[in-house]
């Protein structure tokens, strides 16, 4: 075309005008730490596995999950999911049902026989793990993935620790536990059962272990002094629950009183109900708000007919099973104080659920150890005061949960690995947390949490069938897609779309975006309109 001068122009010629020079601040893509990830004691990259689950690629999701935690089907049942408490979606409608998706993935893996990745190269080093509870299993798994030869020595007849001998099967079916343990062993982890380690240094020396991870848990029931008659039937909770796994079920009688306010107390009371007790009463010193047990568990127990006496202590137990109970009242500081008011309770048995102490006998002749409040002190690298000896789970100071135990196992494994190589493991620096105010929640459609189907009450009271069932595929997908992807780009294309200057380059699926600073004027719309807070603005230096 013979174009008239100046009036008629070649299309797209404005590319010669680099409007980027107008900018006084520039947008930058960032990754922020999602609050769920931050809250996960096992250090799971929750958001990442949800991302895969959202597209229906459950196997990829599962693999991403087990990078950090080898027990998803278990976690999906027993984890107290602090992640959900931290979830930003809770501010919008309800937290994402992370735990239920995790369980779905765990169950899918068991159903489909997905296996862990094998170690790429073997180190030739042997590591001892004492105790096949969640912490020991987790450490063994991670050490194995890092290429070490791992042997677990376990005192009990079966692996699982408190997951088997504490947590009742109506909450954690044993086939699930067995399946997830077996998968770890399939990686080539050696497990020796029915052997209690009595002298750790001896064992290591004898069998040539370069390092050891101790995860013996806390199994010695705490006692309270309760004057009792000869014939009074007084039991401890851990023993009762352990017996549940044996051939003979414990004899608790028709009227069972449980003393304590933790989850263990609830588990015993609910177990008693299932064993045929007409009455299962929990006696607890303080109020419901102060109860260490989780609210949802209290709720489920109450639904099943468990009774709870708040603000009460047990003074004594007579032979014929009569309990004397003193009413308590909270003082101004919130502590329960005796009131001098008494009542009686009839009980065929009293089960004490007052917590557990650690059996530290295997550490008797280890120098350099620090023991405080009955637990072994460890450094940030999970190493005890004795070089090469690491510890985690219930036996070290921390919250006593399966998830924390698993997290300890992972962390210890990484440090043991480094220690074996003569280096130090430096965890990658943590990003800034993607708090709710970083989000533009407008872009998320309203979608309330999927309610997990709950087994009907009758069956719960009479059987040990699992109380809470899992999500089906559609539910799981729905639930995964409720994730807001806080702090990390999920390729929603908003920045690419909203830039008035076409200064965002879309790199293609999975590759995210790039700013074209030749044209970006620094208006900041992309930052305002990024749903998940994955862009920030920084001042231009020149």
């Amino acid at each position, binding site marked *: 075309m013979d174009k008239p001068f*100046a009036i008629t122009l070649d299309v*797209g010629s404005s*590319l010669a005008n680099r409007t980027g020079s107008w900018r006084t601040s520039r947008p930058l893509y960032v990754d922020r730490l999602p609050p769920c990830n931050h809250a996960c004691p096992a250090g799971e990259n929750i958001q990442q596995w949800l991302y895969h689950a959202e597209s229906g690629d459950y196997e990829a999701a599962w693999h991403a999950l087990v990078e950090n935690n080898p027990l998803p089907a278990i976690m999906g049942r027993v984890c107290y999911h602090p992640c959900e408490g931290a979830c930003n979606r809770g501010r919008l409608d309800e937290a994402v049902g992370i735990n239920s998706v995790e369980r779905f993935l765990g169950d899918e893996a068991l159903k489909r026989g997905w296996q862990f990745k094998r170690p790429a190269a073997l180190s030739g080093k042997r590591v001892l793990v004492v105790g096949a509870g969640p912490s020991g299993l987790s450490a063994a798994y991670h050490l194995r993935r890092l290429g070490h030869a791992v042997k677990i020595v376990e005192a009990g007849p079966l692996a699982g620790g408190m997951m088997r001998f504490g947590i009742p099967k109506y909450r954690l079916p044993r086939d699930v536990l067995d399946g997830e343990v077996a998968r770890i062993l399939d990686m080539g982890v050696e497990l020796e059962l029915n052997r209690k380690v009595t002298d750790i240094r001896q064992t290591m020396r004898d069998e040539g272990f370069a390092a050891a991870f101790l995860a013996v848990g806390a199994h010695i029931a705490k006692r309270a002094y309760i004057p009792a008659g000869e014939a009074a039937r007084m039991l401890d909770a851990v023993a009762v629950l352990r017996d549940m796994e044996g051939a003979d079920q414990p004899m608790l009688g028709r009227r069972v009183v449980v003393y304590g306010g933790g989850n263990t107390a609830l588990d015993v009371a609910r177990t008693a109900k299932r064993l045929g007790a007409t009455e299962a009463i929990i006696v607890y010193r303080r109020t419901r708000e102060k109860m260490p047990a989780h609210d949802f568990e209290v709720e489920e127990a109450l639904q099943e007919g468990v009774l709870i006496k708040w603000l009460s202590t047990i003074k004594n137990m007579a032979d014929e099973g009569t309990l004397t109970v003193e009413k308590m009242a909270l003082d101004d500081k919130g502590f329960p104080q005796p009131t001098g008011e008494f009542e009686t309770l009839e009980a065929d048995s009293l089960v004490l659920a007052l917590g557990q102490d650690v059996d530290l006998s295997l550490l008797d002749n280890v120098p350099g150890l620090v023991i405080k409040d009955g637990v072994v002190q460890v450094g940030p690298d999970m190493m005890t005061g004795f070089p090469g000896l690491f510890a985690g789970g219930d036996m070290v100071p921390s919250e006593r949960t399966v998830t924390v135990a698993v997290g300890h196992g992972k962390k210890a494994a990484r440090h043991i690995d480094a220690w074996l190589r003569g280096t130090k493991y430096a965890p990658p620096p943590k990003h800034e947390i993607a708090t709710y105010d970083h989000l533009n929640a407008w872009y998320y459609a309203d979608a309330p949490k999927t309610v997990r189907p709950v087994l009907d009450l009758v069956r719960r009271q009479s059987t040990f069938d699992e109380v809470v069932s899992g999500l089906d595929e559609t539910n799981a997908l729905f639930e995964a897609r409720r994730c807001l992807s806080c702090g990390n780009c999920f390729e929603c*294309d908003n920045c690419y779309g909203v830039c008035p200057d076409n200064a965002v380059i879309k790199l293609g699926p999975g590759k995210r975006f790039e700013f074209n600073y030749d044209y970006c*004027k620094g208006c*900041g719309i992309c930052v*305002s309109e990024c749903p998940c807070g994955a862009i920030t603005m920084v001042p231009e230096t020149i």
Partner: protein
Amino acid sequence: MSTHDTPTERPTQRQPVKFYQTGTFTVGNRLLPENVRSVQADMRRTNSLNSGHRACQGCGEALGARYAIDAAMQATRNQLIAVNATGCLEVFSTPYPETSWQIPWIHSLFGNAAAVASGVAAAMRVKGHSDVRVVAQGGDGGTTDIGFGCLSGMFERNDDVLYLCYDNEAYMNTGVQRSSATPPGARTATTPAVGRQPGNEFGTGKNVPAIAMAHRIPYVATASVANLRDLEQKVTTAMAIRGARYIHIHVPCPLGWGSAPADTIRIARLAVESGLFPLYEAHDGQVTARTPIRRRVPVDDYLKLQKRFAHLFANEAGKERIALVQAVADRNIAEFGLLAGDDAHG
């Protein structure tokens, strides 16, 4: 043409499936099949208005124009000619020797875009290029004021033209003077925030979408840069219809409204969510669909982000005037039933 030659059919109805995380409301969605994603999410979108234009930072008009024209390009398989009225869009996109347009485009005058477009459409008709479609576009001034005669003529003749009005509620290019689309209370250079009735007079202004509907043209819609999918769907619908069509697009102007450039879309969204800018479409003069408000907000939320309304927050008298603005929003909500329906809800 540089762009793709095998465009996919885009359904004209709103996105049927709700994807919660990735949202019905985001530009793209990796979980959706490609052909139902927004045009703007497409790596091969036309970028009809390309980089290097001289619009202010955060200009809503620049954004709205690319949204609308890219969608029209997609809908016509790139067989599109655009006619532009004088105004910011024209000035910032085509200063010699550079143009940002990637499509055949002509600027004639401030007040004649609709008529020039009628001429282009007539030429296409006589030349047998019935696949080549025509859009005319201009600012609110070029549309509701000086170009109104030509616009009405184009409507009345039912010429095959889609007219896009980018409403930034004043004559921005000449330095923010009042137009018949300037809202009550707004400060402009010719309705200063002084005296007993500061800002633009209440009870003035012109509702051009309603006037367009009164012409009984086949399609009229309002749209906003805050709701891309809705906007694209409307452009797509419009391009599937022959005859005169009108889409009135709300495009915040950081310069004229005294708002932060980063807030452009937020402000447009608040206009919709407060009820001040109702989104609807009309076929043959009858309203056939309205986009419901998702999360209703008081007009204050919208007004307070803009310096042109700052005087309303300065004293007690301002409160009464804000109440009048709220009444406008309430009336819109009632008139269009903007709270009814559950289109936008999961």
